[in-house]
Every structure is written in structure tokens, then in C-alpha cells.
């Protein structure tokens, strides 16, 4: 599944990131890399963007970008 499908409160591990472009470069610069673990905090009232916690900080990103991040659920 991809990050945009994860529910608030769930923790995931990044499996892979799709594509090879500027968007991906930017996401990776912010620390979204394979094997990184993160938690979904929630979605904005209108359903987009979403807020996540990774590497000791919080980040918001749009669903379209989150859809490029393949993740597995952590227990």
C-alpha cells in the first residue's frame, strides 16, 4: 500500500519510492528514505494534505506525493 492510504495513528516503514524526478529528490532531501519508519498524525479538514512524523520532526505533504511512497504497516 502507499502512504496516502494509511490511517491516522498508524506507523509504517517505507518500502520504496516511485519515480526519479525533482519531486522525489525533494522528498528524499526531507528524509523520506527506504527503511525509514514514520507515523501518520492526521489529515487536514478538507482531506488533504496529510501530516506525518519522521526523524524527530513533523512534515506535511499532499496525497499525490504520498501516493508515491510505498509502505508496510508496522504493528
Amino acid at each position, binding site marked *: 500500500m502507499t502512504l496516502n492510504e494509511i490511517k491516522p495513528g498508524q506507523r509504517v516503514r517505507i518500502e520504496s519510492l516511485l519515480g526519479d524526478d525533482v519531486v522525489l529528490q525533494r522528498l528524499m532531501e526531507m*528524509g523520506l528514505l527506504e527503511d525509514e519508519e514514520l507515523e501518520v498524525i492526521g489529515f487536514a479538514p478538507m482531506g488533504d494534505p496529510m501530516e506525518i512524523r519522521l526523524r524527530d520532526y513533523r512534515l506535511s505533504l499532499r496525497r499525490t506525493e504520498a501516493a508515491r511512497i510505498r509502505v508496510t504497516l508496522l504493528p
Partner: protein
Amino acid sequence: MVALRTPTVAFVGNPNTGKTTLFNALAGMNQRVGNYAGVTVETKKGKLRVGDLPFDIIDLPGTYSLAPRSPDEMLAVDVILGHNPTEPRPDVVVTIVDASNLERNLYLMTQVAELGVPVVIALNMVDVATAQGLKIDVDRLSQQLGVPVVPLQANRGIGLEALKTAIAAAFESRPSARSPAFPERFDEEVAKLQAFTGSEEPTYLLRRLVLDVDGYAEKRLGDKYGPDLIDKMTAARQRLVQAGFTLAGIEARVRYGWIHKVTTDCIQRPAQRPVAWTDRIDKVLTHRVWGTLIFLVVMFLVFESIFVAAAPFMDWIKAGVAWVSESIGGLLSPGPLRSLLVEGIIKGVGAVIVFLPQIVFLFAIIAFLEDCGYMARAAFLMDRLMSRAGLNGKSFIPLLSSMACAVPGIMSARVIENRRDRLATILVAPLMSCSARLPVYSLLISAFLPIAVYGWWVPGLVFFGLYMLGIIVAPLMAFLLKQTLLRGETPVFVMEMPLYKMPSLATVLRRAFDSGWMFLKRAGTLILATMILVWAALYFPSGNYEEEIAQLEQPLEQPREQLKTLKSELKALQDADAKDAAAIAAKQALVDEAKETLVPHEKQINDLRSQWKAQSVLGRMGQWIEPAVKPLGWDWRIGMAAIASFPAREVMVGTLGIIFGEGEGDAGDEEYRDSVGQSLRNSGAFTVPVAMSVLVFFALCSQCVSTLVIIKRETGAWRWPIFTFVYMTALAYIGAFVTYQVGSLF
């Protein structure tokens, strides 16, 4: 070591690391804001003294990475590499690192380290890290990275002395930071390209050339070495992709991998992350219901502060300007010099400084919202809505502020990092109905759509409609611009949600002060110059009008004074606790009588003024463009008033007043507006469709010099204000045309 010039220290760091607070603490009041040609970001400069060693310090824009994708981002790289012609290469770079978010902050630090300058790490917000249960072994971290690490709490001034000492020591010993190794295969390709440039260019730039597709290095080096280099670069990228690399991922994997390895035994994380204040506050502030409600309240306060709270200050400025022009006008005899001074320069200066209260208020609030961490939440809440227009959440505040005044609104678009989004926001901001349109709206609505004739709901509905026109057209226009002129791949919206914290009063005041000062310095003179030009166009040719008017006015001085006294006496009687109806009636009769005797004389003067303006350069222009405004239902007088309102929309009211024989007056004065409305109705030039056509025109046109000047200043190019003027005038014309033609059918 003998320095030929004062050594320079540059400050770099991620946003939200307290970089500005640290810089302000070190530089104190002794700092100035600077700009570079072609770049819209501002850099701050100041001075620092360690013992008897002086340093120049420069604060570079906050950034997450030194992978330049715009001229603005390239600035930081250029300065550190010593490629900026106006800036010496820094002798030391201080990298501000948020201790509570070490890994991501060190990413930028590893890039800085590769630029070959001594680095000092300012490990800020150690108190926040401690509160989150993070334990950082500073000495070990320093050893691992090969650079001095100074723990700090910049907001409380803790650690500043140690940082200063470390800067001076690094300047002497020039420690070299350790940095990660890139894959061999990648470095081979970089070395080949470097050889092609004759080893002229630093390794860092050539790495950027391979890594950043469509990046700034590509543009820069491509221009310098020609298409051969670009071909070689493309081939190198292809080989790397064939070898199994993801170009976009090479750098991040190398850096984060290395950072994780070297810091892993410098940080101890708690087994269970403590629930921070930020988590609790965020639960409320990004909540579906509460978050939205609080957002609306905050935005209401932002709007009120510039719309209402700034108003008394603006009134004081206006009163002050009126007083100055009256006093100076009294000292001089009538003639071009007096008119230039009073009508041109003093009024022009007043028109510039009248913006200051709104700018200072708005920027104080924005600084407050940014410093406490709410700004990111506001953008988070609004992003979905704004993204439909091709913008992002950060465009909301600039557009909202533009409903009070587009000048501070456009300036506040600086909070938008993405260049295209920022430009789109700036270009559509003037479409939002600002407070300068209000006098025009209320003049025409109360004159031609009175409640007595059309019902209580019509004037309000038209007001509402004019405001909605801007609110609907602005996002549509932004959408169009993003599809055409400002086309490009959708920018990545990844935004850090910083921790909430107490905002620093010093930072807020500093920002408000700087923004006001920058406005005066960068826009003031140009606005003033245009004001004087329009004054001249309305004044010349002046013939004998001014002398004649002065002659006619002289005998009126005394009766006018008398009328004033009578009016204030009448007001005193009316306001008295015990009202004496008989006395009021008697006084009223006296006032009416005094008015009555003045009327023919005033009319003579007003007619003369009207004739004078009609034959002025601007009046002739009005007559000349009449064929163009005919389809809008306008005669030349309305056309002329529309041109004359180029300095500012509200000038329309006074100009209409003069040409329609009501004399001069203040657009904000209701009584004056009523009498202008009266004479507009009697003039025959206006019908309801004409009034509506003028209203729609003013809702959409860009008759505001200050807005156009500030667009030039903020975008750095004249083509953007010219574009704004052209597209808005076209929109306004079409809107007015349709309104008049449709309105005439009924």
C-alpha cells in the same frame, strides 16, 4: 594572521531553527537588510566583535538543502563558494542546527562542509531536545563531524559567548569538516566532467550538475561551457541510471546514511517518545471543527488589524499631512510652486507613508504567526482550497490581506517559497477588493442605487457582489496563469510543521520595522514620482485659473470662517444635554442663511476649477480617449477621472467632484461624497447602467501606482507590473462593457 579585509562569517540553516533569533542576538541593532540584483530574497548583514577581532556577519536565506533550483537558492551557494561578485567568500560558515531534529538538519551541514570553508555548528534549541528526552553527546558529535559544535539556546542568549569564541578559533585554525563519500561510480563521472571544464569548477557544482535535473548548475555551467558539456552531462546521467542508480536518490542516500552512522552513538533517544505540548496543541489546531473555527477567528483578527486597527494611525497621518500642507500653503502665494509643493509633493509623501500602519501591522502579525509556529498550520488547513487554483496554502494570507490593501498583501507573499506560486499570488492579489475601492463603491452605490428607490437589500447586495467579483476572479486568474505563463511541474508541497513556541517580541518588532523601512526605501520614491507626474498632468496648462480662483476666494475667507463658527455653535447646541429646540432652530436658520449667500460664489469657483481641469493635459487625454470609453457608457469626464485615479483608486471621488463642479474634497468625507453624488445625478452623464459599469471597472482595474511599484520591487522586473496593468485593465474593460451593454437592455 593579518587580514587584508574584515573577515566574514555567513549563517546558514534550515527554516525554523532560530537562525534569525541567533543572528539578531549577535548583531544587535547594528544590522541592515540588503538585496542582490535579480534575486528577491533579502539577506541581513551586521557586525560582530570577538575580543578585538571584528567580523562582518551575513544571514543567508533559510533552506533545507543547497541544491539550487532558483536564483534565490543559488545565492547561498554562490556566496559560500565565493562566486558572488559583491560578496567576499566567507571565512567561516556557522551552520545552525536544531538539536531536537538532528539528522535532517545535519543534511544541509554536510553540503556546506563540501564547499571547502571552515564550519562551526551552532546546536540550537538544546532545551527542546532535552524536553523531548533526547541526550546529545556534544563532544563526541564534534569529534565525529570534525568541526566545533556549540550548544545554544539563542532565544535566551545562552551559549552566545561560546559561539563567538568558537567562530574566532575556527577562523584561526580553519578546521575541515568530515563529509560523506559518494559512490565511486558517481565520482568517476563527476571527475570526467570536471576535467572537461579544465578543473576550473569546484567539485560541489559538478556534483550538482549531475544530480539536479533542470537545476541551476545546469543552466549556469551550460551557459559557460556550451552544449558540449550538457551532452556529456546527459550521457553521464544515462550511464548512472543504467548502472542502477536513481539520480534523485543518490545524494539523500549517501548523506542520510553517513549522518545516521556517525551520529548513532552521539544521540540517545527515549524508549517512549514523551507527548509534547506541540502534540496536544496540534490536536486542537488541526482538528476538523475546532481547528477550522480557530483558523477563521485568527484570519478575522488578521484582517481586522489591518482594516480597523490601522485606521486611526492612517487618519493621524492624513490629518498630519493636511496640517503640513495647509501651513506651508499659507506661507506661499498661489502659483505652480505652491501647487507642486502642496498638491504634488506633500500629498505624494502622505500617500506613501499612509501605507505604513497597514504594512507594519500585517508584518508584525505574520512574524508572530510564523515565530509561534501557527503559520504552517494555517497553510496546512488552507492548502486543499488554494491548490484548486493551482496555488498552495501559503497564498491564503497574502490574498486575504489584499482585501485591506494589496501593497502589504503582495509584500507578504514572501512567505511562499515556490517562485511560480509566489508570482501567481502577487499577480492576482490586486484583484481582491481593497479598502481604497470603498469610497468609489459607496459614492456610486449611494448615489445611484439608493435604498429609498431600490429597497434595503440592493446596495448591500451590490457591495457584496463587487467583493465577490474579486474573490471569484482572483483564483480563476491564478489558475489560468498557472496553466499558461507560469506553467511548470506542480511544485512539491512538503512543509515542515515546526514545534509551537513562545514568539520572541524582538523578532516580531524587528520584522515589522524592517518591512516598513524596506517599503519606504524601495517603493517610496517611485510612488512619489508618479504622484508628481499625475499632479503635473492635472495642473498644466494652468493659464490664469489659479490667480482667478485666488481672487474669487479672497473675499470669501471671512464668510467661510463665520459659517464654520456657526456650524460648530450649532453642533454644540445639538450635543448639549439639555436641548433648546428654539435656539437650535434659530442657529440652523443662521447657518442656512450663511450657506445660501456663499453658494453662488462657491459655484463660480468650482466651475472655474472644472474648466481648468477639463483643459489640462489629463482632461485632454480624457477627451481623446472618449471613443474608447463610449462603449462602456462613459463620457470623457468619467474617462478622465478614471485616468486621474491612476495614483490611487479613491482619487476618483475627488476628481469626479472637481469636474462635476463640486470642488475639492476628501474621499473619506461622507458629506462631501453625498454632494458629489448629488451633482453626478444631476449631470446627465450617469445612469444606473453607467454607474454599474464604473463600479465593475473599478473592482477589476489596477488603478494604483503603489501596487504596481511594489510588484516591480517584489518581482525584480518591470514586465510583471506592466503585465498586471494590461491584464487587469483588459478584464476591467470587458467587465464594464458587458455590464453596461447588458444593463442598458432593461
